């Protein structure tokens, strides 16, 4: 398994003309890697992921997975989305085993033994993500964190060569988010999952990844690449270690430099002072 991304670029049409979302970008993900793409919103990191999944087309460049050119979505690249994407009419178990409803996994050329192993593996995954008591529940009865755990189990149950994750914990509260990060880290280590992970949360990226790619704001391009020095035995505590904070500083600096932000501190203070003056004048 080797993901090779070469010179991918993408622009969107808008009323104001073409907007370049992604400048020609290249990188690769090796077997067992956990690679995170971080960057400000609108930097094209999610676009990059969707192109890799084959759900969007690129203007130029190629995506190759184990030497095969990616032309559309298929089961080799599983995906976990930011929004809750469980099928609301199916139970937790039926959702995790959704792939078994598809011809790709049940056609005559798939031996029964394989299907049985897959089913057993899916059951095991429900257990691992801690939802064995909820396997017959409907998604509407689950919390946000539980829904995302089902989505992760569903993607893993299909044994993708690489797991693509688009801000999967973005909608969760801070505490649940940390629990999910711990789960994801252990899953990636024990299940030897290769992951391409998109987030705007720098801490999350540093904690989970073996490598972090920092994107600039639009048009997105890679401005920094960090090999994370922490081993697989890392715990949530490392988020407070000097080394971690140093890396965090480095990434944050990159992000702040790369984007012309309308919401920086000085500008806000300036506007606040102005409005203060006018209110004082009005009250006189």
């Amino acid at each position, binding site marked *: 398994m080797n993901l090779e991304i070469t010179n991918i670029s993408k622009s969107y049409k808008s009323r104001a003309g073409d907007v370049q979302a992604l400048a020609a970008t290249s990188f690769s993900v090796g077997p067992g890697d956990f690679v995170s793409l971080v960057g400000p919103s609108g930097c094209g990191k999610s676009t990059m992921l969707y192109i890799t*999944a084959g759900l969007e087309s690129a203007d130029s460049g190629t995506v190759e997975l184990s030497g095969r050119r990616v032309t559309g979505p298929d089961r080799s690249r599983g995906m976990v989305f930011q929004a809750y994407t469980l099928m609301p009419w199916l139970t937790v178990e039926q959702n995790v085993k959704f792939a078994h409803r598809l011809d790709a996994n049940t056609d005559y050329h798939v031996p029964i033994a394989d299907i049985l192993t897959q089913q057993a593996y899916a059951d095991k995954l429900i257990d691992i993500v801690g939802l064995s008591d909820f396997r017959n529940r409907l998604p509407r009865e689950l919390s946000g964190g539980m829904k995302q755990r089902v989505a992760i189990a569903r993607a893993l149950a299909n044994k993708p060569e690489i797991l693509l994750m688009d801000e999967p914990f973005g909608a969760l509260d801070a505490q649940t988010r940390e629990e999910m990060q711990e789960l994801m880290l252990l899953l990636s280590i024990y299940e030897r999952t290769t992951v391409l992970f998109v987030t705007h949360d720098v801490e999350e990226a540093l904690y989970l990844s073996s490598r972090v790619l920092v994107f600039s704001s639009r048009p997105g391009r890679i401005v920094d690449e960090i090999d994370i020095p922490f081993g697989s035995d890392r715990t949530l505590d490392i988020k407070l270690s000097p080394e971690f904070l140093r890396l965090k500083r480095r990434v944050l600096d990159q992000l702040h430099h790369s984007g012309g932000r309308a919401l920086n501190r000085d500008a806000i203070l300036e506007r606040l002072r102005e409005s203060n003056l006018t209110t004082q004048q009005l009250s006189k």
Partner: protein
Amino acid sequence: MRVLQPRQPLNRRFKVFGGLLGFVIFITAWKLLSGHYAEKGQAVLFPSPAAVGGAALDYFGYGPETTKRALEARAGATTAAEADRSEMKIRAKARESLETLTGDLRISFQRVLVAFLLAAIVGVPLGLFIGAFHWFESILQPVTEFVRYVPVPALIPLLIVLFGIDEAPKVMLIFIGTVLQLVLMTSDVVRRVPMDLLQVCYTLGGKASEVVSKVMLPAALPGIFDALRLCNGWAWTWLIVAELVAANEGMGYRIVKYQRFLDTERIFVYLIVLGLVGLGIDLLFRLVNRHFFRWAATDKR
């Protein structure tokens, strides 16, 4: 008053009370209006609730009108046995109108059912395809929108020319009147299935056909069912329109006939029966919906 706040939930007792209050207001208004006609000596044009209730009882042979005639017949009889016989005869005669009513209801129900099933068989798949495939939508949507604005009753003469005056033109009228609504509503529901769900299916190895059959269809089913429920209401409307024009039995036909005899009380009875039938079918749809699509139930607030 907290009840006056928007979306403030109501407790059960209040709800029952509200429902009853609605009926009391309705019947009082009806009574006042009929009283207004009665003052002018035109009670026959707009019967009071009591008169309609009496007429309804007459269908079972126990209304005031039947009883009056029965008593007259008894008075004219010479022996007790003859009196009993003539009373029985008059009451049995009154019950014949109940048979007319059930006969009308049966034939009308049959027309609606056939047309409605046809509309569902044609409309739901078309709607699914329009909602799922843009190329299909581009071909069919404009035509559908256009045809939808042709007033359906305007088709009646044409339908009679084409299909005669048997069942076919009535079924066709109901079919045309509901199928287009159904197509548009179904396609709307299918269009609202979140893109994410389709993409999940693709990344798990699903084919395009599977995305339609295993994601879009099941996700849209509760909405489709709701569309069917609403279209059922439309079907009954078109049924009456069809029967008003050319029929010799059925609910609409009978209403026109009673109009000729200025039998407004019975018209009211038929209207109430129609309302009850509609309500019953609606309730049935809701029950089935709640049973099969528990996953889609929305919370009250």
